[in-house]
């Protein structure tokens, strides 16, 4: 009898011991819950090619649990499975460009639908969506249908901080231009590279050798080329006054035409139209290394007294500037190509870095209106430095709101 009780007790113990972990496991994996608050809407801040689907994250979300998105072009179907989303992925917080940086975004799933059955979404009729959740054995559907139609948006709200900064900065520049109109004496810091241009032209005149001027490798739609042609105008005017020669080998035919016009006008303004030689502004090629070889040849054969490299450059920068340095020419470079700056710094006597290239035309012209814009630019820089300091301090003490304020998407 005792043996019987002992056996029964042992079996009960084994059952309890086996059941306990199962109960614990059952507690770890909550039963599958139906999806909640499933909504479809036009994706904000986009070009009108997608629909966003959102639904609340659930306690039953875990590895192995998937959400299934079905779509149809009619509310009556036929419904076809389109996407299968792992329940631990795809949150609204993954797309701050659409939903901002709210903490609440981590509680919502998000899926951006761009096509149905590999066809683009219709922009004239709505697309219908159903949602279900499955763990491989059970599948529970959301009790309802969501529908939406994509629409192109006319303003990207995620870029509003950029717009505000551009407007503030533009007003700052315009304010200083209006100050300059009133003939206030604006102080502009000296840029040694630009101050040296006069000396360079004088040297070339004394030596009886030409000045070589390059515009970089970009076309006329580039800001650095526009800045470069503006500087060329100022340089050509000084060259005409000194009765020296300027040679402009061009990489782009349109840039060549613009340069011919700019130099011609400068000679006219200087009262020396007879001294202008159109042949001195000529096209070489629009192949990078062929251009470098040709310019090197010009430097070696004509031995210009001064070389001015203004504009955007690539790997040919050192090939040209080093040849110029070896030839003994005085060299001034100005570029907004950060990767080529070290090469110019090592080979040229003066280098204009980035914004100094853009400022050069205004600096050389000494026109109050242009100088006003430079002053505004300097204040803009001061404002950015202030923002950087404040942002660093605020972020360091644990408040990310300032960084979020200036975040771009």
């Amino acid at each position: 009898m005792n043996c019987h009780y002992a056996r029964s007790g042992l079996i009960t113990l084994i059952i309890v011991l086996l059941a306990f972990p199962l109960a614990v496991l059952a507690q770890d994996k909550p039963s599958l819950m139906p999806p909640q608050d499933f909504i479809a809407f036009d994706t904000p801040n986009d070009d009108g090619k997608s629909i966003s689907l959102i639904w609340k994250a659930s306690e039953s979300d875990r590895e192995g649990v998937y959400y299934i998105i079905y779509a149809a072009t009619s509310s009556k179907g036929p419904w076809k499975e389109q996407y299968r989303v792992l329940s631990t992925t795809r949150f609204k917080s993954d797309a701050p460009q659409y939903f901002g940086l709210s903490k609440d975004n981590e509680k919502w799933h998000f899926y951006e639908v761009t096509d149905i059955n590999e066809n683009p979404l219709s922009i004239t009729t709505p697309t219908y969506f159903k949602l279900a959740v499955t763990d491989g054995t059970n599948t529970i559907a959301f009790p309802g249908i969501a529908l939406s139609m994509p629409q192109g948006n006319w303003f990207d709200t995620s870029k509003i901080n950029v717009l505000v900064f551009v407007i503030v900065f533009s007003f700052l520049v315009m304010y200083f231009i209006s100050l300059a109109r009133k003939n206030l004496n604006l102080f502009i810091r000296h840029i040694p590279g630009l101050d040296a241009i006069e000396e360079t032209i004088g040297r070339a005149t004394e030596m009886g050798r030409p000045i070589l001027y390059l515009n970089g490798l970009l076309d006329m739609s580039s800001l650095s080329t526009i800045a470069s042609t503006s500087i060329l105008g100022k340089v050509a005017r000084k060259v005409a006054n000194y009765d020296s020669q300027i040679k402009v080998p061009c990489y782009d035919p349109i840039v060549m035409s613009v340069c011919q016009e700019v130099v011609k006008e400068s000679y006219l303004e200087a009262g020396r139209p007879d001294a202008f030689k159109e042949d001195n502004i000529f096209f070489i090629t629009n192949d990078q290394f062929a251009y470098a070889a040709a310019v090197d040849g010009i430097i070696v054969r004509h031995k210009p007294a001064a070389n001015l490299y203004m504009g955007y450059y690539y790997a040919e920068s050192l090939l040209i500037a080093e040849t110029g340095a070896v030839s003994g020419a005085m060299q001034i470079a100005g570029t907004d190509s950060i990767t080529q700056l070290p090469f110019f710094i090592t080979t040229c006597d003066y280098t204009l870095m980035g914004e100094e290239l853009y400022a050069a035309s205004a600096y050389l012209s000494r026109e109050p209106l242009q100088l006003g814009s430079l002053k505004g630019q300097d204040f803009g820089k001061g404002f950015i430095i202030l923002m950087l300091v404040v942002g660093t301090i605020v972020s360091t003490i644990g408040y990310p709101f300032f960084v979020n304020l200036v975040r771009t998407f």
Partner: protein
Amino acid sequence: MNIFRRTIPLIIAFCLGIVMIFRYYVPHQSAEDLLTKYGEWVRIIGGFSIVLGLYSLFFTHYTKIKRGMPGWGYSIFVFIGFAVMVFLGLIKEFETFLSIISGKLIDVTSPFGSWEKSLTGTSYDWIYQYIFNACGATMFSILAFYIASAAYRTFRIRSVEATILLLAAVIIMIARVPIGGLISHWIPDLADWIMEVPNLAAKRGVLLGMCLGSISTALRIIFGIERGYLGGGE
């Protein structure tokens, strides 16, 4: 005359400048279409500009030959190279034309290949690959010697700045070759720090200035304050 040389270009610059600024904030497809259209215009104008470029190139070299200027002999090769490439290109075009009108399939095994399918294996391609590209690669490879020469001149210790530059360069150079890591793991770590902290900070500083400068220059161009690119400053 001034209206065509100044007023109309300034109006075009103002209108297109404003449109292009706002295009950045408009995600709508029409804004994207506008940019595509703009790209097409640029390409069309670029196509016509080749004529300008060719005229300038030929005129320069013709003048050199005519006047017997130093190095005029090299100018002959401009005309020879141009003639050869145009001839090979036209022959190919002619062959393609004949194939189309005779209704025959284009023989891709012909020495000139086919424009439609591929230029690979054609004489045109051969010259491009084995003469033109090879010359370009030669120029590019010379860069290594130019870097050494420029570095030697720069690294001569003449000032505190040059000394700092030399030290930083030596650390980076040693760290970027296998022996750097073998000497000590501190060398690659220090090189990474130099690249990621002081170097990146300086780069970002230049970039910030550039961005502000470009906005300021764009405003000067849009509002017609900067008009040097039109020729003349006034």
